[in-house]
């Protein structure tokens, strides 16, 4: 038998031997599906880090705006942007609440 023919035979034999090795178990499939499910559930509930930091950034911005508005209020006569301050205060409370909620989910 020529060397080339022998090499071809070896290749066929090698392929056949490899194809007989079957690594299959239901446990592996179950594990993968379970991990996918867990990851999916986590992503459905927990916000990503970007969202958490965005809420914090919003709170800080609103806080800074509120501070600027507050110093414009005349405390004796109670004139100035009082209504705006109240709205900003509520908005800031809401963003802080969102930040805390997302932080809790992440933990």
């Amino acid at each position, binding site marked *: 038998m020529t060397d080339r023919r022998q090499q071809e035979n070896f290749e066929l*034999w090698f392929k056949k031997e490899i194809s007989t090795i079957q690594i299959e178990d239901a446990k592996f499939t179950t594990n993968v599906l379970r991990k996918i499910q867990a990851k999916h559930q986590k992503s459905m509930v927990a916000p990503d880090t970007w969202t958490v930091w965005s809420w914090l950034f919003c709170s800080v911005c609103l806080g800074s705006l509120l501070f600027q508005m507050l110093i414009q209020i005349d405390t004796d006569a109670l004139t100035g942007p009082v209504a705006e301050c109240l709205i900003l205060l509520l908005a800031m409370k809401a963003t802080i609440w969102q930040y805390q909620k997302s932080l809790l989910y992440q933990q």
Partner: protein
Amino acid sequence: MTEILTPSDEDLIRIARLQPQSCAFEQLIKRHQSRLRLYLRSLTGNIELADELAQETLMKVHRSLSQFKFESSFKTWVMAIARNTFLDHARLAIYRGSDNGHFFLDGHSTEASLEVSSNTEDQQIFALDLNQAFELLSSAEREVIAHCYFADLSMKETAMILKMPLGTVKTHSHRALIKLRENLHAWNSDD
């Protein structure tokens, strides 16, 4: 007589995309897990690590299923993701200093990395034999054999994944097969 058609990989991908709760992805895992795990075992030389990487690969596949463009076969795509997952892991291990970079069979030469508990004794002996013969191959030759024979990809697909010219893949494969032929006891005893 009714003919039961087995859905193709492409059909299963479409179903999995449209109905994520269906068992289509499970079918895909069942269909490809053996080759994937075998391929990663041939790259890592470690059963536990290979299975861990296989799980990570399949999770990545699931996550990016919507990005599959049907330009290559599903198997080629999965193996390419598996290779990247393996390379990421290898880089991280080298960075952490937990491995010297020679992943394949390094430190595992006396263990049967391709050992399969459910298989026959003959196959386990073959796996051990194969492991020892693999040690004599260069890293490029091992990679080509891992892709062409363990992952069952064509030379063209292997060239695409390894980003190598087709001629180089053929040369590595040819050289590796000669070395394996000379060193695989199972073949020599059959011969």
